[in-house]
């Protein structure tokens, strides 16, 4: 129930389209639907940001899901399933984290 209304209101309000990543394709954390598991493929952006995310336990290869997002183009809430942590990320930053779909056994 909750998830549905999030997809309905949360997304539309922020004017973002949901893109289903294809098997080979990458897309940013901002474009994936909430509640599904993805794998971090690559962290783009400057060295400072990159190092900061690494220190927080976000590495390429980790499994993540998008938990929630705040209104008014606010930050997104990302859960890292590999290290079992949650961080809030500004949109500009979430955009630089590229994810890919996971195959069944990786879960």
């Amino acid at each position: 129930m909750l998830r549905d209304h999030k997809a309905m209101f949360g997304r539309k309000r922020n004017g973002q389209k949901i893109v289903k990543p294809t098997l080979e394709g990458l897309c940013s954390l901002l474009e994936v639907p909430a509640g599904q598991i993805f794998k971090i493929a690559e962290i783009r952006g400057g060295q400072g940001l990159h190092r900061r995310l690494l220190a927080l336990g976000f590495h390429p290869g980790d499994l993540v899901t998008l938990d929630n997002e705040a209104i008014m183009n606010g930050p997104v809430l990302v859960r890292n399933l590999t290290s079992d942590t949650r961080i809030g990320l500004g949109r500009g930053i979430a955009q630089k984290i590229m994810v890919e779909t996971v195959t069944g056994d990786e879960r």
Partner: protein
Amino acid sequence: MSDRAPVIVFIGQPNCGKSTLFNSIAGYKAQTSNFPGTTVTHVHSEVLWNRKVYSIVDLPGTYSLSPHEPQEKVVLTHIFKEKPDLIVNVIDASLLSRSLELTLELLELEYPMVVVLNMMDLARKKGMTIKVEELEKKLGVPVVKTVATRGLGTDVLMEAIEKALRLSARPDAPRFSREVEKRIKDLMDILPEDFPLVANQRFTAIKAIEGETLAVDKFISGPDRAFKSELDRLRQEVSALRDAPAYEVISVERHHLALKIFEDCCRVTHSKVSAIDKLDNLIMDPVLGYFFMLVIFAGMFYLIFKVGSPLETWLLKPWEAIRLSIENNLGHSLLAELLVGLVQGIGGGLAIVFPYFIPLLFLIGFLEDVGYLARASFLLDAFMHRLGLHGKSVPMFILGFGCNVPAIMATRILESRRDRIVTALLIPFIPCAARTTIILALVAFLLGPWWALGFYFFNIFLIAILALILKKWFKYDSPGLILEIPSLKVPSLKSIWQKIYFNLKEFVRFAWPILIGGSILLSFLSYVQFDRLINAILSPLVSGLLGLPQSLGVTLIFGFLRKELSLLMMFQALGVGYGQLLSVITKTQLLTFVAFVSFFIPCLSTLSIIWKELGKKVAMMSAALNLSVAVVVSWLIRLVASLF
């Protein structure tokens, strides 16, 4: 044992309960000292245990030994300058896998070390079973389990510390994969003789490959060109291993090691979604979350008012009776005046602390410990960005409702100086407990709760406007939010009480005596009619501009010391008790006075902490900003009121 007390540093990732653990150990303390400051920010305590003295240092939380944020740099500086005898690495056991990455990095230092698995209760709730002996074997250092919030395991920890110090065994640094190890070895071999070593050769080499700016770069930019090109080559080779920057390759090595250890030492029986998780989803919901936030904060202030207001009346009653009986028995002699001053000082202090200050501190401490402040930051981030600020400033503003001083100290965690200055300039406008007291005691009590609520909202609105103005002034360049959201925790009363105690001690030791002394002094001054001089000097402002009784001028002087003093001195200056106030001044005058006192200058402690943290210029700016806002706002109130 040597005569120097062994130095033990507590290091851990933010929110691992390190300070709670530190406090529950420092309960044995012989003496505590506090050294705040931008360069060295650590709490230091001498602990007496088993007839031996230990010097224990609580460092700010850090995610890694590669510093990004100012408070993390403190950690590194401290480790390398003070050369601790023992590192106590505190870990949030419920986040074992990620926390181990810092542990592995600390092991590279090869200092004697003890690992503390804190928050064991939380880990158990998550369905984690940690095999401690296995972990000890893998890490090569002793591992202790604690639940700091309940003070469990601190004795075991002290025993482990004592033993580790006695053995003084240096752990072996964890080994990376062969290819990476080879490059580290290569670099160690060519490190020049005079290279500034950090901890040991291997650690220095790793940090050089990671390209840490810490000491290493300064040296590299030096004359030794051959070494530099060799380092560049090795860095590139490491980088090529994973087709990623060298620092990422090393970080991934630690990540994998940590995951491996985690898998070997910890079994997770799948825990079902608990009630707390469900609650968490609700309060973080993009729609309902804001509704809950409103309810939480409105409820908080409603509760304080509901508790505080009757309690205040009840507490003031006996002192009012004493005051009347003194006046009846002794007339208006000097002795009577002084006694009245004394009685009003003591009674006023009690009437402030118990009804409002303690409940407010309790509720803020509660929200902090539950983990709600981080969630509020997340929810309000977008809003704050529009005001030219950061979600990370939210907890500071909320802390400011308790007291502005710790709120300004907390701005240290903001990365940019610009954000720090803007936040610190805005915090003094937050109605702290002392000002809430004035608002509740004067506005709510005499004009009604809706007026107080209105004043509060107006106050928050004013802060938003000021933020927009400051945004024009200071160029805004936001780095975007990166904020860990800790799991919701059931707070421990002990740790909340510790926070209240800390603030209360300050009040009782510092503010209350001033309050009593000031009250007596004012009685004396009015007896010899010296206050008239001060009032005359301030008269153009007080009665000319603001239209207030001239006699209130002197109360502003005390308001600078502490805001609530203005309130007490007001009764003293006008020569009336609580109930009769509105017979002497009008409602408009009351509002004008409250507005002016709330804003006219940050109180002495706030101003001095701004000075200390951000410099004279910012402190002066803050005072000027407050004064101009106070004059404009209270003049506007007078103007608007005159229209009706």
